[in-house]
């Protein structure tokens, strides 16, 4: 599906994010609740009218006009009650004017969404609030959909949204595109949220698989928006976008129609999305600037090696191991060490992998991480030690994992037992 078809496919959701962003600029972040309410109302209005009368010529303009009028009505009522704002036009000169081409032009929509992202990802907000707020206001997901994607209770997500909006109001967090030194810290927070969003969509394909692919799409859409704006068009943004694109290029080959997971080795590489790979490599090129080497650069570099390899066996495992080494320098966590050990084992053989894994085998952070024993199982079975491999697969199956992963592990276990 091409991009414009996808955009039309999510018209309401994308319009929701655009409208919330633009109306938040006009009415201010402290009125975010009202803004969300009127946008929801406008979509409901469309749902009531469009089925009978057809879709208007310019759906976005129709929707935002309805939402804006509702907001004005509400504020007018509020104002007349409080008698605080006798002249609405003076208080809000921006919307006293008729909706002009200028007010709602395409670039403004995009700038508004970026400012909205910076608002939702403000460092003063707790990280879990940032993700929830971004998904709700910029990406147009409902609390229920967010809860489903993150396997959380809807009430928990709803609470986070309320808390986040209250904090934005109480601490008067502003709707703006940060600049200068402020930008640096705040951009990091936005990139982190997009990375998290993508990972959530990528790492599991359980249950609501469609929605999870949506998370990946949304993270990519927002990352593209970031690179298109001069303020956030910096090397690490390109590096993150490169990483997301290259990882997404493999999504079509990861799971078959029956929902079975394919490991990298077994994937049909002709199913990889070449367009995404091309774009990812271009972004990786664009990221090779400046003097900051981020974890996104290295992860994208690793993903690029995979994307460029004609087969699993033709992969440049030495380079990948090297990049994991550098990644470990920046981000010394045991999951990176695990992945490095896997790359090393492809390069130097299973014994080298097992040796590297010995140092993290009992790391508490990996105690319930199924991929550690699963990896050990693979390496032992490559060495012909099927009894040891079976033990590892058994402990992997005791850890939480998704349904397709569980099936894969059981299949491996059965094979090890047969030998």
């Amino acid at each position, binding site marked *: 599906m091409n991009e414009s078809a996808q955009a039309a496919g*999510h018209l*309401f*959701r994308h319009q929701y994010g655009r409208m919330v962003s633009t109306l938040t600029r006009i009415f201010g972040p402290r009125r975010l609740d009202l803004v969300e309410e009127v946008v929801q109302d406008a*979509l*409901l209005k469309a749902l009531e009218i*469009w089925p*009978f*009368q057809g879709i208007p010529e310019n759906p976005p303009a129709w929707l935002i006009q309805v939402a804006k009028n509702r907001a004005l009505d509400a504020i007018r009522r509020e104002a007349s009650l409080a008698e605080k704002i006798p002249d609405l036009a003076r208080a809000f000169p921006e919307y006293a004017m008729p909706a002009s081409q200028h007010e709602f032009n395409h670039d403004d929509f995009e700038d508004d969404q970026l400012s909205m992202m910076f608002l939702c990802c403000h460092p003063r907000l707790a990280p879990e609030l940032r993700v929830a707020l971004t998904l709700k206001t910029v990406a147009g997901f*409902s609390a229920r959909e967010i809860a489903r994607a993150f396997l959380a209770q809807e009430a928990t997500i709803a609470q986070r949204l309320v808390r986040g909006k209250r904090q934005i109001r109480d601490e008067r967090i502003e709707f703006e595109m940060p600049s200068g030194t402020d930008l640096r810290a705040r951009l990091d927070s936005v990139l982190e949220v997009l990375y998290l969003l993508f990972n959530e969509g990528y790492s599991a394909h359980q249950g609501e698989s469609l929605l999870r692919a949506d998370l990946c799409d949304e993270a990519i859409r927002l990352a593209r928006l970031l690179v298109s704006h001069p303020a956030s068009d910096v090397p690490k943004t390109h590096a993150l976008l490169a990483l997301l694109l290259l990882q997404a290029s493999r999504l079509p080959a990861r799971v078959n129609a029956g929902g079975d997971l394919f490991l990298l080795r077994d994937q049909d590489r002709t199913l990889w999305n070449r367009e995404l790979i091309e774009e990812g490599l271009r972004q990786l090129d664009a990221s090779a600037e400046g003097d900051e080497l981020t974890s996104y650069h290295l992860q994208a570099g690793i993903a690029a090696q995979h994307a460029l390899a004609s087969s699993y066996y033709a992969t440049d495992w030495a380079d990948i191991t090297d990049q994991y080494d550098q990644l470990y320098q920046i981000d010394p966590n045991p999951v990176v060490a695990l992945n490095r050990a896997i790359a090393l084992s492809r390069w130097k053989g299973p014994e080298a992998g097992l040796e590297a894994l010995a140092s993290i085998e009992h790391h508490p952070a990996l105690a319930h991480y199924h991929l550690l024993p699963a990896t050990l199982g693979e390496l032992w079975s490559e060495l012909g030690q099927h009894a040891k491999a079976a033990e590892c697969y058994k402990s992997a199956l005791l850890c939480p994992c998704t349904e397709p992963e569980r099936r894969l592990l059981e299949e491996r276990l059965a094979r090890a037992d047969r030998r």
Partner: protein
Amino acid sequence: MPQFILLLRDERKATEGFSPEEMQKLMQRYGDWRRTKATGGQKLMDGEGRVLRKQNGKPSITDGPFAEAKEIMAGFFVIEAGNYDEAVETAKSCPHMEFGSIEVRQIQKT
């Protein structure tokens, strides 16, 4: 071909809490149905609706003739069908059946 009017009634609460995505999907279902089955349709103005009757020789106004006070008349579609039963069959396929009721009436040819 005889024409029929389908009067759609619902309770406004039916779509409460829908996400933008869910709303759009529902709207597309209505749209697809309209394009393939109906020859026309209009949304009716919001409001309860009033019925005018003559009582003791004077006009009297009562609220809409709906069984459920909560129900509102959302709009109508016009369809063509060979006979009344066919029209009912077509109406049954309308997504609106999940959210409310449909009254099927044949339009008198003049």
